[in-house]
């Protein structure tokens, strides 16, 4: 766990874009792993841990979505489809910078983060777990709760999108 906790935190932070929420998610995942799976063999822990973590991340994202809907309902805002705009999404991001500028500033990770933000959630999960955390395809599938084929599909699309977004800046 000691070797995983920092990377797990960064992965949760990349998915949630919030330090406190990421810390809460990692803490809850650690506790749940200890309560439920402490007796399992140690090599099974990483996919189990990331499965719990992904579940906590999705819970947090759902809570945010509900909270945003309630907030937008009371504020009375609607877009052209009659849907309430997401205030978090529509709020200006003080850290948002063009990926090209980020690379110029020498911050490859920030450029990657910025590019990852535009990915669908499942593609981002596949990229985070398979590429950044380094789980194999089977472990990633277990962590994501889907088939290995789905992992490969999500990952392929994520890689394609990210390379397209970053090709001019990372080449």
């Amino acid at each position, binding site marked *: 766990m000691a070797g995983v906790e*920092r990377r797990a*935190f960064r992965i949760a932070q990349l998915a949630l874009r919030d330090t406190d929420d990421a810390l809460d998610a990692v803490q809850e995942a650690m506790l749940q792993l200890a309560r439920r799976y402490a007796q399992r063999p140690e090599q099974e822990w990483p996919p189990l841990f990331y499965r719990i973590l992904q579940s906590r991340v999705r819970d947090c994202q759902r809570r945010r979505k509900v909270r945003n809907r309630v907030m937008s309902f009371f504020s009375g805002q609607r877009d052209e489809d009659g849907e309430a705009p997401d205030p978090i999404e529509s709020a200006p991001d003080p850290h948002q910078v063009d990926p090209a500028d980020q690379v110029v500033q020498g911050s490859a990770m920030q450029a*990657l983060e910025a590019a990852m933000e535009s990915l669908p959630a499942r593609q981002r999960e596949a990229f985070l777990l398979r590429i950044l955390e380094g789980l194999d395809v089977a472990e990633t599938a277990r962590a994501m709760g889907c088939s290995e084929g789905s992992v490969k599909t999500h990952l392929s699309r994520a*890689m394609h999108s990210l*390379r397209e977004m970053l090709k001019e800046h990372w080449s």
Partner: protein
Amino acid sequence: MNNSHADHDSEFVERSRRAFAASVASLDEAIALRLRQARQRALAEAGRRQPVWRAHPWALPVGAAAVVCAAVIGSLVYSNQDQQMAVPFAAASNNDMAIVLSTDNLDMYADMDFYRWLQAQQQNQNQPAQEPPGNDDNG
């Protein structure tokens, strides 16, 4: 073409991993401390919830022996109760059940006092005829 695509992919993957590793390494120390504390809490929780048979290896055979003993004693007591109940019931079925099932016999039991009184009257009437023979000599 495919090789070139794969090279680009692996280069992209390597670059992503290097960037991620650098961001992990430069993590704020306060956050790293909170993560360590969370891990220690989780480990303490895992220790608290350790199953009894892991904390005390003797608990499993002792517990199994206790369960077997309880089962044997329970079955013995139960079978003994069965035997005790079976004997009076068998006797009742031979004698009393015939009386219980017959309405005539029930009527007889209800009039038992009358029959006892009748018998006593008959015995009183018979007694003067059985007086000792010495009384005839007096007459």
